[in-house]
């Protein structure tokens, strides 16, 4: 069956305190295109199926290669990046909605600041003495590098928070992404030296303990980061840390 058009439904909302509405668009079909191309086409011809001229939909995007994390949205009920959502694999009409766990800015744009704030609270960095030339870094086992790389690909896109029942617009839970980053930095030879600080932060408000073990995060992660392993690994590290603190040694 040859398709001639792409049918889109976009949830529009002009601002955080305004009622949402759905707008439908019908654009010419092209093979091998993605949601971003469709949104670009709508911007070029901002007319709804009813023939009404509308404002160009507002959406977040940057790299379009699924490495920056900007264009996360809910596409046919599933949270994912719009750039890697290929039209040919989606059932039409394709429904586009903003993520629900973050404050809405406009249309498909949300404010994911809480994720960056969490990284700040978790001390998600390797402390270095300075940027002057201090010679090579520590030697690293290639296997440890492979493990670290798989965690380091987290692009703070927000999918894992969107699917987490413990993350709500009002809850303080930092979510799987930040927990996994603590694991990343605590396994680095230099980062390890400051593992305590991160564990303390991780045990603070909205920290590791708020995980409810629903394990949706790992299935939503577009980068296939082993998030549930990270959460359990941090469970183990905090257990060891607490026991050590209680009993010494």
């Amino acid at each position, binding site marked *: 069956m040859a398709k001639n058009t792409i049918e889109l439904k976009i949830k529009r909302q002009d601002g955080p305190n305004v009622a949402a509405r759905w707008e439908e668009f019908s654009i010419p079909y092209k093979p091998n295109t993605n949601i971003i191309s469709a949104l670009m086409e709508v911007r070029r011809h901002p007319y709804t199926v009813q023939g009404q001229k509308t404002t160009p939909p507002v959406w977040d995007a940057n790299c379009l290669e699924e490495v920056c994390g900007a264009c996360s949205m*809910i596409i*046919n*009920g*599933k*949270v*994912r990046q719009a750039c890697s959502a290929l039209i040919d694999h989606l059932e039409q009409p394709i429904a586009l909605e903003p993520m*629900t766990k973050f404050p809405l800015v406009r249309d498909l744009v949300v404010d994911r600041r809480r994720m960056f704030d969490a990284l700040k609270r978790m001390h998600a960095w390797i402390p270095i003495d300075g940027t002057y030339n201090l010679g090579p870094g520590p030697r690293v086992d290639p296997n440890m590098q492979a493990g670290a790389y798989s965690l380091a690909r987290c692009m703070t896109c927000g999918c894992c928070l*969107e*699917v987490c*029942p*413990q993350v*709500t617009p009002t*809850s303080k839970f930092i979510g799987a992404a930040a927990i996994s980053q603590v694991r990343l930095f605590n396994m680095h030879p230099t980062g390890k030296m400051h593992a305590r600080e991160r564990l*303390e932060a991780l*045990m*603070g*408000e909205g*920290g*590791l*303990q*708020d*995980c*409810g*073990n*629903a*394990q*949706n995060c790992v*299935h*939503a992660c577009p980068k296939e980061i*082993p998030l*549930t*392993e990270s*959460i*359990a*690994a*941090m*469970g*183990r*590290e*905090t*257990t*060891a840390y*607490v026991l050590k603190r209680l009993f010494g040694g």
Partner: protein
Amino acid sequence: MATPAVWQFYLRRLHSLAGIFPIGVFLLEHFFGNAFATRGPEAYNRYVEFLLGMPYLPVLEIGLVFGPLLFHGIYGLFITAGGDAFHPAQGLGARYHNVAYLLQRITGIILLVYISYHVWNTRVQAVFFGQHVDYAYMARYLAPTYEKAVYIVGILCACYHFAHGLFNFAYKWGLTVSAKAQQAMTYASLVVFAAMSAVGIHILFSFK
């Protein structure tokens, strides 16, 4: 000294621990002891006598059973209120652990009601109203079908809540880290659920 926020971490861990010890251990003992009912009235009544004759009984009952149960139950309500179990996990459908997350909370709430009911009829009646609880009383009390239905629901909820609690415990405390270990623990917890449910319902039908 720990900041107030850190107490949430310890409370949550204590909650998880309390579910296994002493509550889980008590549950196993409770099932095992009541299983004397399958050996007939005399065996069961001897077990009841043994329990009632234990030294420091009130301390044991309050310290190891009712206290932890109350803490686990009430703090569990706070945990439930902190999440949004009914929010659809976008596009992930009915994945087991997502459903289990919801079930753990629903069974927890049912258990709060059920255990209160159970304790009222089998323990409060004995301690405060002089009711002699023995095999005959239990058989009479459990005879109506609706009572059996209530107990079946209660037993299934208790077994599931405990079995999945084992998985949660292993995950939260970091006993099972690899995806493989977590998968194995998931299956193990389902086996525990099935086995305990069978035993529990067998005991229920042993009072006749």
